């Protein structure tokens, strides 16, 4: 092995690190360690001049290993690997020491923080000494795409991909396309007809030569990896198999069932209806009570099932604007009625929404605020009262206990995950959060990808959102998929596991623990084999292997042990 020539770079991260760590002293001391050729500190290592510093040092000092002490590797490991690549050395000959999240942000003693930084960097130096150069790998991409869910997000994704001449298989478990949007009368905030938006979309999808629609169908099994998935689709009892390269999950959410909230009387009081039931009334143009009378008092209650620790803590995002939409529609249909809007907070964040609120507030709608923990109660009015129901509430803006007369109560039900969301997650290999929403690869920077390459999540199955957001995500996923198809192949993880067949005893422990089903078994040789395209390099198999036959590339025993040794070498 050639002699290691290491470059150390200590980042200030502006004042983020420098205020708690003596970065100059750290760099100076690290510079004295064996094999370290240069040790520098710089205000922002991730900036272009910061990266240029590494590139020019590699060339000038003939460095063959680099350690950057900065933020979390989740943030900038890729940035610096790229810099190494630009300088002409293998990107895996790099290690990062996290002295921001693990040091400066969490400690208050500057001396101790400085010492801890030194330890972490020493560990990184020890580790990087044993890094091997790893080569990139790529796999071919099958140009067909599987779209799960025929709601507006699924339709938008399917159309976008098919429009580029690529095959799409669109799977919908119900008998019709359109999802919940098909049951809606008008769309907030511009009050345009949902049918006028949705029908052309459905028609285009139905008539597209590149889209094969599977109604009343479900996917029973997906195997393979990015670019090369095999999907088993069950359509009315018959099973078809399709080869696909990418998957779009657009399975959406379902409406919250308000019957579990006793105080709203849903299911017991006939004129308490859900948002969807009111939509139906609007769609058929008949807003009336169960006894066929025009309601004189209409009350709309927000946050039903949302923003409440007893039901769901999250905000369902669509209900506030739908409520205002209902208030507007009710006002047009019932010009003389009293309209009450019982809300906790009016969330009008999207384009055109604040305007809808302002416009609605001019229409003699009485907005009554209740506190999140103090929900209103709907009850039958006393005999002889001139209204059907009475809502008791503590009104927060006046501080008064009041009763609101009502002949119709509309519950703005939130959304929640489908009961079988877990099955879908398991099928495509994505994780779920506590609310059973699918988890993005990165909530801010990679919101439609997942940790499973080739699987994209869009629309409401990720979190509640309105149509523009759902469609944006669908089209973003489509763009990602089309980009990978046009590349023809895709780079896959190289820090995978590998089996030393000489040592493997064939116990198959690794197969049981692998979360990505990436390990198979060779009956003939009696050894485990790793499918590198599926392997994520998580290392679970390596730690479970009783004989040490499985080695995780980039996480070898010697790398980790010497890292620990380095960590312990300094007194803290």
């Amino acid at each position, binding site marked *: 092995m050639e002699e290691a020539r290491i470059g150390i770079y200590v980042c200030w991260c502006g004042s983020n690190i420098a205020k708690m760590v003596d970065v100059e002293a750290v760099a100076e001391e690290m510079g004295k360690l064996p094999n370290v050729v240069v040790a520098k500190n710089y205000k922002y290592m991730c900036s272009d001049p910061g990266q240029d510093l590494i590139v020019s040092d590699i060339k000038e000092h003939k460095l063959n290993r680099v350690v950057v002490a900065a933020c979390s590797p989740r943030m900038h490991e890729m940035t610096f690997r790229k810099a190494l690549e630009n300088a002409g050395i293998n990107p895996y000959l790099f290690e990062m020491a996290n002295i921001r999240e693990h040091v400066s942000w969490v400690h208050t003693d500057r001396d101790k923080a400085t010492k801890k930084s030194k330890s972490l960097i020493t560990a990184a130096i020890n580790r990087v000494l044993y890094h091997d150069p790893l080569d990139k790998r790529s796999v071919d991409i099958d140009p067909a795409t599987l779209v799960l869910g025929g709601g507006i997000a699924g339709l938008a994704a399917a159309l976008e991909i098919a429009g580029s001449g690529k095959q799409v298989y669109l799977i919908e478990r119900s008998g019709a396309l359109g999802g919940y949007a098909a049951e809606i009368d008008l769309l907030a905030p511009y009050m345009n007809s949902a049918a006028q938006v949705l029908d052309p979309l459905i028609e285009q999808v139905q008539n597209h030569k590149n889209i094969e629609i599977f109604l009343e169908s479900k996917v029973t099994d997906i195997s393979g990896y990015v670019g090369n998935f095999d999907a088993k689709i069950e359509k009315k009892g018959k099973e078809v198999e399709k080869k696909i390269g990418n998957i779009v999950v657009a399975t959406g959410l379902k409406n919250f069932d308000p019957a579990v909230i006793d105080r709203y009387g849903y299911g017991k009081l006939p004129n308490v209806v859900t948002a969807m039931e009111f939509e139906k009334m609007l769609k058929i143009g008949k807003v009336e009570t169960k006894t066929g009378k025009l309601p004189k008092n209409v009350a709309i209650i927000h946050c039903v099932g949302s923003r409440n620790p007893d039901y769901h803590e999250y905000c369902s995002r669509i209900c506030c604007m739908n409520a205002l939409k209902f208030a507007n529609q009710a006002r047009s249909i019932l010009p003389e009625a*009293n309209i*009450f809007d019982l809300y906790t907070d009016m969330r009008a964040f999207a384009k055109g929404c604040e305007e809808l609120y302002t416009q609605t*507030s*001019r*229409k*003699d709608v*009485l*907005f*009554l605020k209740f506190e999140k923990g103090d929900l209103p109660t709907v009850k039958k009015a006393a005999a002889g009262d001139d209204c059907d129901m009475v809502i*008791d509430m503590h*009104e927060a*803006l*006046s501080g*008064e*206990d*009041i*009763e*609101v*007369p009502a002949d119709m109560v509309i519950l703005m039900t939130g959304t929640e995950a489908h009961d079988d969301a877990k099955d879908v997650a398991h099928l495509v290999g994505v994780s779920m959060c506590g609310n059973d929403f699918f988890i993005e690869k990165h909530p801010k920077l990679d919101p439609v990808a997942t940790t499973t390459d080739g699987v994209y999540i869009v629309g409401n199955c990720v979190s509640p959102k309105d149509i523009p957001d759902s469609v944006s995500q669908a089209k973003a996923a489509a763009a990602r998929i089309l980009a990978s198809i046009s590349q023809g192949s895709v780079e896959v993880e190289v820090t995978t596991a590998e089996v030393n067949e000489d040592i493997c005893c064939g116990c198959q422990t690794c197969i049981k623990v692998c979360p990505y089903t990436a390990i198979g078994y060779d009956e003939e040789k009696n050894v485990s084999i790793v499918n590198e395209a599926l392997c994520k390099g998580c290392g679970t198999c390596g730690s479970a292997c009783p004989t040490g036959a499985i080695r995780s590339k980039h996480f070898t025993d010697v790398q980790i042990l010497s890292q620990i040794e380095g960590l312990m070498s300094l007194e803290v």
Partner: protein
Amino acid sequence: MSQRVDPNLMKELESYGVKKKDWNACFHCGNCTAVCPLTEQGSMFPRKGIRSMQMGLKDKLAAGVEPWLCYYCGDCSDTCPRDANPGEMMMALRRWLTSVYDWTGLSGKLYRSKPLHLAVVSFLFFAVLAVFFIFAKIPLLSDPANVQLNSFAPVHVIELADHIMLAVLSFFLLSNMLNMFIKVVIKDKSVKIPIHLYFKEVWLAIWNFFTQWSFRKCEGKLYWFAHLFLMLSYMAMFSLIVLFLGWFQTDTIHPITHPQRWIGYIITAGLIFGSLYFMIGRARKKDRKFKFSHHSDWIWLFLLFMIAITGILIHIFRINGMAHLTYYTYALHLAFEVPMVVTFVAFSKWSHLVYRPLAIFFANLKKSTLALQKNR
């Protein structure tokens, strides 16, 4: 006991000068209350009152004195981010409260209907002229230079009419005040005011009545001065003509140094200055507090101004010996004065003369009671 929400109160309040636009606009940021120099812990306004209006909490509104604590400087309306004119809503609430206190219902009718208000005022105006036309004898026609006002309108007759009017109106005004007391104090079960506090706080109420002292916290000292000067002048005039007419209405012309002359001049100056100040303000509409005018505001100012003008003319004609003109103007003077007193003092705008100090009195009583309870 929870109160029933009733948005239909809006329809009623609209006729008292609340604008639907303003009613809808307020979204309760509380800026108005924050900038108000008079609001304080325990009596918060205007936001809370606006909320009660929006929700149609009639009983709560009727029991509240907050609108009377406001002198309408207009700061709240100036700073309202939704342009909801909170100051004007308070003004309209005062009109509505006046009608709530008035058990006869006449007040509400006058406020709600401009034609009716004008009709009643006109009727009284012409009725007074008719009475003079029928009963008054123009004395010594042969000697117009010798003005004998007391022969034309003998003091004892006018005084008797004054006293009858005083008795009738006092009855109505006092019963309305009692009504207010019942609504604000008796029905409020949350505070039980000890009797001795009434005697303690009454002095402050009287002081406030004569100085409008709390008004001085508001912006605009000229506004306070015009308002106070007008009120004191009218009060003085009212006392003179009702209680001391014999001293005030004489046929002898006193020298200019005589109190009868200069007191009369000061009163007239107050009426002219006050009514002109408010009329010009309301006509220009530049100042927030004068931007919106109800018909009661205009009729009231017009009558006040005409009372002052005819008063001046009577005086000029009298000291210059112009007998006929003096008599006719005197009749006109009374024709303006009677509708003013009859419609406004007990049933409309002038009644705030008593409701406002009474409200301050009640508010202070409640405040002191709570302070006592706290200390105990």
